[in-house]
């Protein structure tokens, strides 16, 4: 547990959390590794976890009928993965697949969700962090969908 605390405490995502909340998070955490090509989770499965990627690359994929899986984003060292556990119906909206060997900290979100309901301070602290993450990803997705390097934007933009 101490080792996990050490791992979490330097990550910007957890910055500013109280000692007690950090201890709780560490108590809900475990190290998990994934071989290349193994799914961390799949679309529609119950979302009962979130992850801190310690190393390696994870592809987030959507499956398109007749066209197979398509990677819409990748996550790497230091990235947080997963917020579907926060919002009903608590199911994943995409697949997460290891592209390289991936080492993570896995958090038991079902337990944390329950604790957040009973401890509004913890609930607010975590929601604030996950909302920041969601906004960051939303902005990134918006930028990605603009096709900024396409023909509409020329010159140095090309």
């Amino acid at each position, binding site marked *: 547990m101490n080792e996990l605390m050490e791992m979490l405490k330097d990550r910007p995502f957890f910055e500013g959390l109280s000692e007690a909340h950090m201890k709780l998070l560490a108590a809900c955490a475990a190290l998990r590794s994934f071989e290349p090509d193994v799914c961390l989770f799949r679309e529609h499965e119950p979302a009962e976890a979130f992850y801190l990627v310690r190393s390696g*690359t994870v592809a987030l994929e959507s499956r398109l009928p007749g066209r197979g899986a398509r990677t819409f984003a*990748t996550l790497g060292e230091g990235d947080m993965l997963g917020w579907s556990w926060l919002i009903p119906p608590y199911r994943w909206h995409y697949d997460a697949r290891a592209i390289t060997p991936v080492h993570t900290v896995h958090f038991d979100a079902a337990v944390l969700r329950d604790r957040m309901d009973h401890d509004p301070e913890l609930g607010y602290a975590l929601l604030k962090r996950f909302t920041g993450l969601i906004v960051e990803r939303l902005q990134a997705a918006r930028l990605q969908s603009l096709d900024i*390097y396409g023909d509409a934007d020329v010159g*140095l*933009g090309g």
Partner: protein
Amino acid sequence: MSVSAAEPAHEPMAPEPWRIRQVRREVADGEVFTWTMEPLSGEAAVARPGQFNMLYLFGVGEVAISISALADDGTPVHTIRAVGSVTRAMQDLGPGDVVGLRGPFGSAWPVAAAEGRDLVLAAGGIGLAPLRPVVHAVLARREAFGRVLVCYGARSPRDLIFRDELEQWRANPDLDLRVTVDRGTADWKGDVGVVTQLIDRGGFDGRNAIAMVCGPEVMMRFSALSLHRRGIAPERIHVSMERSMRCALGFCGHCQIGPHFVCRDGPVFPYPAMEPAFRVNEL
């Protein structure tokens, strides 16, 4: 021919004839290509990273193109993306063909100011071309800099330029190269997503870092936000602006952004000087 001085060597409005020595295709369809050139006569001024030349295709027109490297003899290398009438016509030229060149013009990346600091380079699309000479300058005096991060985003794997060099940079422990594409392909094993995500992963000391950003304006704006969020003060974030150019000498006003002339005061600016323009362009 000899190479000297940092200012345009000749009459600044009169293009000097330069011969294309070598053409290198950067992407499969040749839409992006790199020219190594030599002056037919006289002296060529040595450009600094971030500066640009005006390249003139006789009878067609003139375009601003950044220095994408300096050849061993100090002559400028240019990397061009064919987008319109002049640059598409340039795509048809080969070794031995002659074009007009005036320059170098404009401000340079503050490479010396980055010494002793971490350096973050963020490039989008062909925006890697004007930043490449910075990487060369850093590698030539690597010990003078802290951590050096190169974040490069492109539309798809087939749009990545300078591939051989990217491989060398990737293998170089002195550089932290991160590459991402907006749209992956089945055989692409790298990152998918926008370049800001590469910045968000950190790996530099924001309080002591300097950043140089080049790409589409919207990419530069979001990159500046990410860099700032990571602790880099706005005045230590530098961007390279692009505006349509005519004289390149601060006379005609074609390239004006507010009180600034991109050709004379830029193209490299500290981010705060350009922030109002980014906001207006996003309205």
